[in-house]
């Protein structure tokens, strides 16, 4: 069987690309190493409970009937209806720093007002910045990289406000420490503050299962437990892939969501990167750096709803230090800052609610520490640091410790296992390949390392790469 395209990875971007190709009757096959779909954003069952990993909330929320914006574009491209994702809007979220709090829900004007109320001396400057962001075309694939800190520094003079704006945007999508590319900043600013958060009551499985069913109905092939060991290259072109078990699959094109450096690492023959040594790639350019931003997340199941404890907020982004540090910590976890998410705290249709309460706490993690621990120490360290995460979080939300009935924790090690990203880099490599091309003519990238961010961004990444490179 000769495929038109083989897609590596059944995550959001791979499935979305697959739908486009299958819709236009291209023979397409998605290969996924794991036993389930999803990759970074996935779901599992543990001790009779459903858990989500990755997705806290879908960004780029738009109410039903909206005809513009990323969510509408995505639905049109996938030939899906708004109801297929069944998003319910958030209750409201906040960014909390020492002495300052900015609240936001899905009403952008209210957010702007709140920033101006909290930082009155910055109000005019902030409104000018908002106009600048509005006018910036972050969807162009030919934008030159620019430091978002430099751009914000031209508009704002209060370092705390700058950090408070960065905090949620970095936590939800920055592959680079300290700073972001301004284009990426605009994508995240619009998706989080202007459009906002939503969630299907069934969580990420609602979206992934809908994508998978749609893909299969259109004739796409999906093979789970089929890892790609090698991308075959012959005369500067790929001819397909070799699976973990040695089977060769031939294809006219390969679209990889495995990550940039990870994909180059799969190339065989004269293109191979030798893992571990000097890392010289015998190709025209050097090896792109891999990412190093990763997280631990502790998921707590409660015997009550969070609102019964007085906690109604959807997501709290907190930082208790003088400055916000977004970087791999020197400690195993950075407990000064974090994200607290409760999937219960959305306006679900007809007052529906999850059966149990959930609190998820996320902290920046040192990948090297979590990768190198021996198994026994690893389990103990997860539990120990999980306790410390709670102690840090309950400075910002009610103490929920007496109500915990079950806990699960993931680390950079878990992320590496399920995404293949070196160091468990949640947001991939710092340098994005916006046009998705590689040195191999018919090998393309989609997903995190192409550079559209968030859940909706990931799907748009797959769609855009399929449209630009595989359907012309």
């Amino acid at each position, binding site marked *: 069987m000769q495929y038109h395209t083989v897609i590596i990875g059944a995550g959001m971007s791979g499935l979305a690309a697959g739908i486009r190709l299958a819709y236009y009757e291209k023979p397409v096959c998605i290969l996924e190493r794991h036993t389930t779909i999803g990759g970074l954003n996935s779901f599992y069952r543990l001790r009779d409970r459903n858990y989500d990993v990755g997705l806290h909330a879908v960004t780029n929320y738009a109410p039903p009937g909206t*005809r513009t914006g990323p969510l509408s574009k995505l639905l049109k491209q996938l030939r899906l209806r708004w109801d297929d994702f069944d998003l319910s809007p958030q209750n409201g979220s906040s960014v909390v720093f020492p002495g300052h709090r900015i609240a936001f829900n899905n009403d952008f004007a209210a957010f702007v007002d709140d920033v101006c109320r909290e930082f009155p001396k910055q109000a005019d400057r902030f409104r000018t910045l908002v106009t600048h962001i509005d006018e910036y075309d972050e969807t162009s694939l030919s934008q030159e990289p620019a430091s978002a800190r430099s751009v914000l520094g031209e508009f704002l003079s209060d370092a705390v406000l700058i950090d408070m704006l960065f905090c949620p945007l970095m936590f939800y999508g920055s592959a680079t420490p300290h700073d972001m590319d301004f284009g990426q900043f605009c994508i995240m600013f619009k998706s989080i503050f202007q459009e906002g958060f939503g969630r299907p009551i069934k969580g990420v499985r609602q979206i992934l299962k809908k994508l998978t069913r749609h893909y299969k109905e259109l004739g796409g092939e999906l093979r789970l437990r089929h890892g790609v060991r090698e991308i075959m290259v012959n005369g500067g072109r790929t001819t397909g892939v070799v699976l973990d078990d040695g089977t060769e699959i031939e294809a006219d094109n390969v679209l990889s969501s495995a990550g940039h450096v990870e994909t180059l690492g799969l190339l065989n023959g004269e293109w191979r990167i030798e893992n571990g040594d000097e890392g010289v790639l015998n190709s025209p350019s050097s090896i792109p750096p891999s990412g190093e931003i990763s997280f631990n997340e502790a998921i707590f199941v409660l015997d009550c709803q969070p609102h019964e404890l007085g906690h109604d907020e959807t997501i709290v982004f907190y930082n208790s230090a003088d400055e916000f540090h977004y970087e791999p910590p020197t400690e195993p976890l950075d407990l000064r800052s974090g994200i607290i998410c409760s999937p219960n705290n959305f306006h679900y249709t007809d007052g529906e609610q999850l059966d149990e309460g959930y609190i998820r706490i996320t902290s920046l993690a040192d990948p090297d520490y979590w990768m190198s621990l021996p198994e026994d120490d690893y389990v103990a360290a997860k539990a120990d640091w999980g306790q410390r995460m709670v102690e840090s979080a309950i400075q910002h939300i009610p103490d929920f410790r007496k109500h915990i009935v079950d806990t699960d924790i993931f680390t950079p090690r878990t992320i590496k296992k399920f995404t293949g990203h070196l160091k468990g880099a949640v947001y991939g490599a710092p340098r994005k390949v916006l046009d998705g091309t590689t040195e191999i003519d018919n090998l393309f990238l989609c997903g995190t390392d192409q550079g559209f961010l968030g859940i909706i961004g990931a799907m748009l990444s797959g769609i*855009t790469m399929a449209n630009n490179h595989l359907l012309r």
Partner: protein
Amino acid sequence: MAPPDIRQVVLDILERIAPDEDLSDLDDGVAFRDQMELDSMDFLDIVMELRKQYRVQIPEDEYENLITMDSTVDYLTPKLADVPAGV
């Protein structure tokens, strides 16, 4: 296919691309873009749907013919003349 059939073909495609749009008031003489939310990705989709359903090839420099319903139908009429209606 006659022009009225072709008009229906284009309407069906628009409906598939943008299921949430109300097309009942579409003015055939006014640009699609001014009446519906269609971006360049959507125009590409119209072209690809025509290729998928009727094997019509539309070169990129002829996309400008797809501005209004009238211009689209005019442009497609010779290309779809030999295609039986209702296929």
